[in-house]
């Protein structure tokens, strides 16, 4: 199957909407998936740094008044392209699963 189903796709997916810092990324993944998906904190930052090294996301430190600087991540043009590919792979994956499972269900119904 082509879809890798990994954390990278989830991170790119939430960053496609807007730039976020690490904690917000983790929250948004949980929020958008209605709690069914969580990205453990100890996996989050390695994934973010890997994506940054690959050039799929960019990061900058944003100063905050009265608080420590915050590192905010944004998706890059290469990351957007990668996200499109991942979405396409996911749709193919879902479609393939559906054709197997729905067929099986239809036969059961008969």
């Amino acid at each position: 199957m082509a879809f890798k189903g990994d954390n990278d796709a989830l991170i790119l997916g939430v960053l496609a909407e807007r730039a976020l810092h690490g904690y917000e990324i983790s929250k948004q993944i949980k929020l958008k998936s209605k709690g069914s998906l969580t990205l453990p904190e100890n996996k989050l930052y390695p994934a973010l740094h890997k994506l940054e090294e690959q050039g799929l996301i960019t990061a900058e430190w944003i100063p905050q008044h009265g608080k420590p600087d915050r590192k905010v991540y944004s998706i890059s043009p290469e990351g957007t392209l990668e996200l499109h590919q991942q979405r396409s792979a996911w749709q193919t994956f879902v479609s393939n699963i559906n054709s197997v499972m729905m067929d099986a269900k239809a036969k059961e119904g008969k």
Partner: protein
Amino acid sequence: MAKYADWYTVELDGYLKGRVSDVHRFHAVREISNHIAEHVDELIERGMDSVDAEKAAIASFGPPRNAALNFLQGRNPWTKLGNILLWVGCIGIVATICFTGIFFQNMMLYRPWSEYGSYFLPISAGLWVAMGIGLAFGALMTKKVAVKRLFSSWMVGLMLTAGYLLAGPEKHFADVVPTQFETAMKGWQEGHTATLKIAKLYDSIAEPSGIQDVNGQNVAQDRTLAIERIRTLGPQLLAIKPSYVSVRGKETTGFLGPVDNGYYPYHQYAQARYGADPYRIGMDELPVTGHAFPWTRLNLQYFKTADEAIEAWSSSSRYFGGQTNEFSQMAVHQELFMGNAKEIVEMSRAQVAFRTLGPLAGGTLGMLLLVLIVSWLLTKIPNVTLHSSFRRKIA
């Protein structure tokens, strides 16, 4: 921040120290520390006790040792070295293009584009080392094809070379006064005429002495004819202007034969390595783009016995692409030089620069594209990680 979070970041910092650069370590710890702080704030807002909130926040990261391991696993251990190699490769490209363009501009002027660009450049070891080791290995390690950097280096190399060719200190034909050129051309023509005469006489003497084919085997030898030719034609060689023909040794009588024509091995090397014209044998007339007219110099000496002289004529004769001796080849190169000189003297520095840069740009571009393809393929090879060694170090 409260004590548990402080403890966590200190522990994490300790595990990362010495395993990543200080800058990366500082940013990593700061980022995780901010994450913990935000998580703690949120939990406190939801009504949790501050100590419990801290414990929950750091528990979500796991033990600091595991957090450090995860962080290290996510990094490509070869990125730094790979980037260094990429920069080395880029600098190498710039240097090799400049070196080739400046020092071999004569060849690029004399050879058509397709010949220089497609043949000589791809055999340039320096260029392959720069591109191959720097860029290909850099791509393998960083998992990126540095397209922009590569083409920027290519452009920088060409621009620097163009700058030197247009404004460099080397004298150029365009700087030559017409009367100077006419004088030089007269001298070259005289040298060419002498070379043709030498070549003809040389052939006539060497042929009966023994012609060796490309396998080094004698295919013909007529001793009597050889001796006759040495006696009758040898003095005609001596009658040619002394700057072209010289006699070595203390003997003044005997049988004339060639000796120590020192340019010969170099000529062979230059031709084999670069397909270049032999150069700088004698006086330079005009320092035109660094290239000198290939002057002839035939060295002779008197041998005591006819057999020694015959052996000397025999062993110095070679077949090369239909030419029977190097003086015939020399005459061809001289004609080529004069023909090119007449053409180039009419050109401006800009035209010369363009003519030099054309094959350089085309040839190096072809090689760069090939290296780009290889680099792209190399990025598909998975990284060798140091996961197990990192684990052992941290444990």
